[in-house]
């Protein structure tokens, strides 16, 4: 696909989603009400991806303050939905409703995975937050889609964040050891070839056993930002360059942005992620004037737009910043590189807790 073809495909998608979410037959109550208040019709005004800036930034508080039913498109009315949570260290968490998006996202992601390192039919283990999170179903679906089953070891990141907030770092280590002990037992005694976990948990498992020597060939990782040095450490030392490290970027609201793992060494382990266009768009914006897209090679705040039939979320400002990177031969649209917490150079951010 060329860059022009990708742009054309995205513009088509934008028009389709405007028609879907802003018509009475299929649209979402939340957006239909919003349109009445805003006084303009996105179906008329938003004809291409560049027009998305006409929307204000999506506020994730809406996902906490509004009833979930308000985000159910009329086309899906009466159909039971999944509820996926994000955040929520204290108080009511933010929730997103969904049906099949996670399956689409992870099937699309599956197409990017190497069969050598993520063998078809191989079993998976997921070590990380399960419970009300989309990831729990998504990773299991990924395993099933590729012909395998998925083991799970749970972890409660909200509790870990509280411990960190109280500076009870010994307790954090104890809790991590408790989780690790479970993961290690399963990896040692079951036939597992693929793992999903977070970077820090991966390192923690690797402290206890040789991950590669226990049959794991591929590791799909996400959850927190990683410096190039940390990515290198995970690939070269934790996975001993025997298993493949596949970093991803994403969240419950978007899906998965993928990287190109085989090119990491030649890029000094600087990771560039590409959004699952046209289902979602990642844009690097000027934090002060978010309608302006930063130049290639410049850091800016990550802005996320989701464009699926199940969920429309325009211009959500992530809590991350990244470098705008040029399209790749494999992904003919902008990438986001070296993601780090927004304002990482000026303030302390509790991140990467598990």
């Amino acid at each position, binding site marked *: 696909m060329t860059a022009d073809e990708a742009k054309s495909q995205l513009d088509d998608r934008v028009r389709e989603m405007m028609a879907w979410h802003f018509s009475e037959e299929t649209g979402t109550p939340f957006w239909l009400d919003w349109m009445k208040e805003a006084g303009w019709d996105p179906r008329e005004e938003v004809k291409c991806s560049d027009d998305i800036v006409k929307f204000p930034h999506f506020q994730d508080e809406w996902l906490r303050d509004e009833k979930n039913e308000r985000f159910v498109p009329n086309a899906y009315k009466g159909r039971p939905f999944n509820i996926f949570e994000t955040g929520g260290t204290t108080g009511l968490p933010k929730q997103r409703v969904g049906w099949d998006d996670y399956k689409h996202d992870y099937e699309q992601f599956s197409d990017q995975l190497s069969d050598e390192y993520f063998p078809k039919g191989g079993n998976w283990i997921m070590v990380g937050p399960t419970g009300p999170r989309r990831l729990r179903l998504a990773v299991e679906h990924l395993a099933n889609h590729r012909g395998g089953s998925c083991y799970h070891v749970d972890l409660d990141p909200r509790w870990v964040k509280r411990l960190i907030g109280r500076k009870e*770092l010994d307790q954090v280590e104890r809790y991590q050891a408790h989780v690790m002990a479970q993961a290690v037992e399963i990896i040692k005694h079951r036939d597992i070839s693929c793992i999903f976990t977070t970077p820090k948990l991966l390192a923690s498992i690797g402290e206890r056993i040789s991950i590669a020597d226990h049959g794991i060939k591929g590791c799909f990782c996400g959850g927190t930002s990683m*410096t190039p040095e940390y990515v290198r450490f995970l690939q070269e030392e934790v996975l001993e360059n025997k298993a493949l490290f596949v970093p991803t970027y994403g969240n419950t609201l978007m899906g998965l942005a993928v990287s190109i793992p085989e090119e990491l060494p030649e890029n000094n382990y600087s990771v560039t992620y590409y959004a699952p266009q046209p289902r979602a768009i990642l844009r690097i914006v000027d934090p002060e004037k978010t309608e302006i897209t930063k130049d290639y090679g410049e850091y800016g705040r990550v802005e996320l737009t989701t464009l699926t039939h199940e969920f429309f979320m325009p211009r959500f400002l992530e809590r991350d910043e990244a470098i705008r990177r040029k399209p790749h031969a494999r992904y003919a649209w902008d990438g986001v590189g070296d993601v780090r917490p927004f304002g990482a150079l000026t303030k302390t951010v509790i991140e990467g807790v598990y």
Partner: protein
Amino acid sequence: MTAPHHIPVLRQGKVYQSLDVQTVPKLGTDEAAAEISFACADMIKYDMHKMGSAREALKKFSCEELVAITKKAGEYFLEADLPIGTTGALQSPEDYVLSLASTSGLPHALIRMNMTRLGGIFGQIDDIFQGLTRGLDWAVLDKGYGEQGGAPVSFSPTTTELAVILPSNSPAVNALWIPAIAMKVPVLLKPGREEPWTPWRIIQAFIKAGCPPEAFSLYPTQHDGSGAIIRRAGRVMLFGDDSTVKQHEHDPRVEVHGTGYSKFVIGEDEIENWEQYVDSMVESVSANSGRSCICTSTIVVPKYGDEIAEAISKRLAEIKPLAQDDPDAKLSGFANPKFAEWINEAVEQGLESKGARDVTAQYREGDRFQTRDGMNYLQPTIIRVDSFDEELALREFLFPFASVVECPQAEVLDKVGYSLVLTAVTKDIEWINQLFDCPHIERLNVGNVPTNRISWNQPHEGNLFEFLYTRRSFAFAETA
């Protein structure tokens, strides 16, 4: 302009260049003095699992051999061109002085003084070993057991590594870990951001002298890396204030070198001779630019407080910010310029009380806070306080600073609190006995000895051998 040296991570002696590289600027400029590889916390955790092999490498040498290596290393540290960076470049002793001065703010003369002091540690390693072990035959550590004073003894190590979280403000603190090598304990060092130079050079001197490189790990790292080291190492030395001391006070693995609160006290029997002790008091307050915990921060006298404060102030006012390469420079700039501002604010706050007066103000040129060559300085300061209740009476700062307080001799021990070093100028035997009995004094000098003069064969703050080894009882079954 030559490229700055790259200080890599050392993983049991092996050079590791990180992708996380940070630049340390030459103070007062935008020019890079060094590029430093930073290690991530998890890498350090991984490496700490393997420290046993570092100790095995040291155990192949006898203590006698390691003592000889340490002595030789001292010569190299002082005189040799030693590897620096990752390109095969060599660093002469003069290059070392210039590099350290450029990032730490220390005057060249002070760096050379600290070099000499460190050289002394290397050179006196056999005396130090004997002092710390109370005369143990070092073959006991080779064999694992033996005799001391006619009694059977055996010592086992408490750890596979001595981790040290080093500060940026005083190269001489590296003296604390040097003897660990002769005791067969590998070191894991986290250098201060502005001061990788001294630990690096000491390590290179050791390696050139024949020490196995595996004995040395150097991890420039962020806060989480330091935290991992502190939580995981078998034995840790670190430097900090009272809150750091409190945080670790019940953890036998951690030895915190905190605020010294060192004091110079004159007894009632000697106070009429106070003028004879002015030189000692000036040295005690101002040595090493007042940065050491063994520098005097409080002077306690039964009378003549005003006269003594005036006399010392006149002398200290002669110490001014000079060019770093001026041979007479005794005052150090601040590597972190903000520190000078914060400290000055704290002193000014204390002076808002009517019971505290800055005696030096009338003698020094300009304000206490000075800027020179792009660096911030604090000029020496003597505060005359009315009583120990004053905020500045028992404070310690990172520059030549002391309070002078009058107090009857009989009340001194109740008032002065903890003292890392206390010099008591007296011949009053009864009082001397009370001083020796006082548990709050770490090192006691009786007579006219500046507080900054210490002997390394008598530890003034923790005993390294007792930190690294524990005595066990043992027996062999009698054989027929």
